[in-house]
């Protein structure tokens, strides 16, 4: 079947119209050939068509006698009936997917997840309604035409012979589509006249009208071809026996009624070619096989027919084809490569010739992508570009081989901490490796991930490093009561301890710990536990009045009552109450600020979502020493409140770090106040998701000098553009990190300076 296709192109290329006509006949013949495939297409009407035809909208068109029709006529008839049902907009560019339209125009409003295709159609503005309107117009025109052609149709149909078995299935469709078929024929004959006259008149009464428009490759008739292919494919799905060839067939049918057929159908009174004709055509086709490549060129240049042909002419694996380069005969496989200009296929040998070049190109592309990825990863890890220091190199190497290290020796506490960080990140801090860090004279120990460390090993810290003054343990889920008890008695110089994730340690143990350590304790941090409750807090306040640092992070049972107790800690310098599960309101926080606010250097109230501007007022009045302020996710804070906090805040000399992440009400005026007050002292500024900051918010950058600013987070602020980042870089000479996740206006063109980490830019991430 497909070979026949090639033959056609060949014929057309060789000597124009006469051959074209013959070819058309041949094509039709090939459709009529009593092969199994053809029958499958033509004999049974696709069930879904029948379903459509029972639609009341079509019922009008069902009148008229039920006639037996020839299969090929039937095919067209069913196509045209489909056409009336699924109107097609001639100007749409994506007609290949038209079959979606009926689905979209369905009256029920049920909506589910959309396919990419549906999204695409929606983006491109292909709407079902518009298409329907156009179709209605076209249908009206077609109906008028059909009336005109009624006579001719009647004659034509009388001549049609049909020997099908299952007419019953198709009876109604035939009746319905006969008018359309007539219309089609009329159109064709009209077109024939037009061509003869040299007028080139374009009949736009149906979708076939725009076939000669150079730009119409995707629209009009080809789209119908697509729709029809779909139609055939639908029937294929139901019957499961039709092969791909039938799809080609529908293209063929399309091409057939498009242009080539114009003359043929006009002249061919007889629908069924004689045997002699068939034979002749077959012979002609055989002869023409070799030259098909060149002819494809001719066709594909200027008409959508060419496009259809090109698409349809991809041979299926297993066929015999002729190499586009050396013209040798070969069997098509799924791996056959296409020819140099995309036409034809290459034989195995010719295909192999180009292989190295293609492989190299692919490698290069992959390498480029990998480079982009690794670059983005390095940015995330804050890896500085350029040569690493020898110390960094060694630290990484040691961390990599940490399991083989027997002792770290005197590498300095800085390097030790670095190694600890790296192996914590790699999750290789274990009972074995933790021993490497237990140097007898250490005063500060930090373990960043103790999840693999047993309580016994944690206990050893107390035994090996009795000189500890400060101990930080994170994710120490295996820590038990006796471990903390042991620290309390063993670590005589302990001043500060932070334990996060120790959910096994009981409240009684905390109480015992505070009683034992007593006034010695200057800093205490606890988090991720539900066992630290009011009693423990009372014990803390009673026993450790000199506490300077208190961090309560993600603690379940910290509520207003509990917090009021903190007013008994007048020496607090650092206070963190973050991500509490209980609803914490303004009043206890204000009380605390009134007692210890004047000395506070760091205040962190992240995630206490009920706090309002009243807290800001308290901060404004009392926190003169404040340097670090974190108010993340306090959605109730208003722009006015924030403006007021920073306006005339002469008590305070300027913040070093400010976190307003997701304080969504912050606006331009508030940011301007922040910059006025703390612009010169800020080192870190987090404005993540402050979405109200519009383009006017960045005006402050012209007049201020942020000489200490090192880190800034502008993620998800939509007004951030290249200009904003460039201005920011201009006013802040030591800026190192800029986070710009979700700032989609930022392009690759932004001028950055050496050593700056711009993290999260879309252009870097999308490869």
């Amino acid at each position, binding site marked *: 079947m497909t070979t026949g296709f090639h033959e056609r192109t060949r014929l057309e290329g060789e000597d124009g119209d006469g051959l074209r006509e013959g070819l058309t006949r041949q094509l039709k013949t090939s459709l009529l050939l009593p092969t199994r495939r053809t029958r499958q297409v033509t004999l049974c009407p696709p069930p879904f068509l029948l379903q459509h035809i029972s639609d009341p909208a079509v019922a009008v068109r069902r009148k008229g006698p039920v006639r037996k029709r020839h299969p090929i006529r039937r095919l067209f008839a069913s196509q045209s009936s489909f056409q009336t049902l699924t109107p097609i907009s001639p100007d749409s560019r994506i007609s290949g997917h038209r079959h979606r339209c009926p689905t979209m125009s369905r009256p029920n409003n049920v909506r589910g997840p959309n396919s990419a295709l549906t999204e695409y159609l929606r983006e491109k503005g292909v709407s079902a309604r518009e298409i329907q309107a156009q179709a209605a117009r076209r249908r009206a025109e077609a109906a008028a035409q059909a009336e005109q052609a009624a006579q001719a149709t009647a004659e034509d149909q009388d001549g049609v012979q049909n020997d099908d078995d299952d007419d019953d299935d198709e009876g109604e469709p035939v009746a319905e589509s006969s008018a359309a078929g007539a219309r089609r024929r009329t159109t064709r004959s009209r077109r024939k006249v037009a061509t003869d006259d040299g007028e080139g008149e374009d009949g736009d009464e149906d979708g076939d009208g725009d076939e000669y428009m150079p730009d119409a490759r995707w629209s009009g008739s080809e789209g119908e071809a697509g729709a029809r292919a779909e139609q055939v494919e639908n029937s294929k799905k139901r019957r499961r026996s039709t092969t791909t060839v039938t799809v080609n067939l529908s293209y063929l049918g399309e091409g057939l009624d498009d242009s080539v057929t114009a003359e043929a159908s006009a002249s061919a009174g007889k629908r069924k070619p004689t045997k002699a004709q068939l034979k002749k055509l077959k012979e002609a086709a055989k002869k023409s096989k070799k030259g098909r490549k060149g002819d494809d060129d001719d066709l594909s240049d200027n008409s959508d027919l060419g496009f259809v042909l090109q698409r349809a002419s991809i041979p299926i694996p297993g066929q015999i084809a002729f190499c586009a380069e050396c013209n040798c005969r070969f069997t098509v496989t799924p791996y056959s490569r296409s020819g140099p200009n995309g036409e034809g296929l290459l034989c195995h040998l010719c295909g192999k010739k180009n292989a190295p070049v293609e492989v190299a190109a692919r490698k290069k592309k992959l390498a480029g992508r990998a480079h982009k990825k690794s670059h983005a990863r390095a940015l995330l890890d804050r890896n500085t570009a*350029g*040569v690493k*220091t*020898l110390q960094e*190199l060694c*630290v990484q190497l040691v961390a990599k081989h940490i399991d083989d290290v027997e002792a770290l*020796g005197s590498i300095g506490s800085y390097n030790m901490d670095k190694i600890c960080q790296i192996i914590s990140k790699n999750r290789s801090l274990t009972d074995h490796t933790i021993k490497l860090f237990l140097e007898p004279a250490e005063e500060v120990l930090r373990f960043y991930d103790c999840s693999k460390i047993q309580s016994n090993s944690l206990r050893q810290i107390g035994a090996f490093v009795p000189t500890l003054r400060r101990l930080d343990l994170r994710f120490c889920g295996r820590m038990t009561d006796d471990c903390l008890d042991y620290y309390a008695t063993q670590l005589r110089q302990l001043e500060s301890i932070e334990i996060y994730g120790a959910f096994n340690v009981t409240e009684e143990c905390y109480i015992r710990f505070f009683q034992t350590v007593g006034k010695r304790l200057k800093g205490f941090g606890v988090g991720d536990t539900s066992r630290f409750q009011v009693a423990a807090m009372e014990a803390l306040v009673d026993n450790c009045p000199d506490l300077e640092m208190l961090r309560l992070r993600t603690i379940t049972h910290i509520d207003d009552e509990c917090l009021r107790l903190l007013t008994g800690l007048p020496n607090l310098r650092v206070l963190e109450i973050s991500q509490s599960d209980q609803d914490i309101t303004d009043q206890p926080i204000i009380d605390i600020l009134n007692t210890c606010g004047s000395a506070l250097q760091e205040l962190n109230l992240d995630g206490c979502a009920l706090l309002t501007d009243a807290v800001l007022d308290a901060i404004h009045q009392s926190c003169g020493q404040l340097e670090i302020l974190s108010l993340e996710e306090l959605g109730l804070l208003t722009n006015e409140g924030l403006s007021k906090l920073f306006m005339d805040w002469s008590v305070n000399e300027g913040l070093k770090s400010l976190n307003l992440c997701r304080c969504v009400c912050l606006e331009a005026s508030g940011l301007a106040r922040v910059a006025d007050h703390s612009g010169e002292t800020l080192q870190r500024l987090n404005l993540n998701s402050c979405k109200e900051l519009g383009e006017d918010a960045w005006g402050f950058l012209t007049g201020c000098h942020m000489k200490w600013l090192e880190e800034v987070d502008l993620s998800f602020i939509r007004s951030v553009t290249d200009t904003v980042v460039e201005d920011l870089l201009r006013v802040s000479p030591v800026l190192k990190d800029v986070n710009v996740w979700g700032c989609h206006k930022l392009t690759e063109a932004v001028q950055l300076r050496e050593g700056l980490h711009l993290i999260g830019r879309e252009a870097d991430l999308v490869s």
Partner: protein
Amino acid sequence: MAEVLDDQGSLTLISNDGFQFVIPKKTAFASKTIRNMFNKNTGYIEAKENCVRFEEMNAVILEKVCEYFCYKEKYAGFGGNIPDFNIPPEMALELMTIADFLET
């Protein structure tokens, strides 16, 4: 104190087992410690003798250090992909101590 440096010519690094490595001064100044030694204002004897004796380094380590100096000079300010500097794992800890000392 201002830094007065003469980075012309070369200097000699001597390991504790007597091996001598002669490298350009500019290259060796990748180490802050060595640079400080050659600061005229500090008046270290090394600056006069143009030679540094490292009592705590053997030839193997010192060679690696010199190799790193050259690596750093070659790839400083290099835009493309910088190849990894190869360190044998068994040398890593010792080299780290040395690197800490040399501030490089």
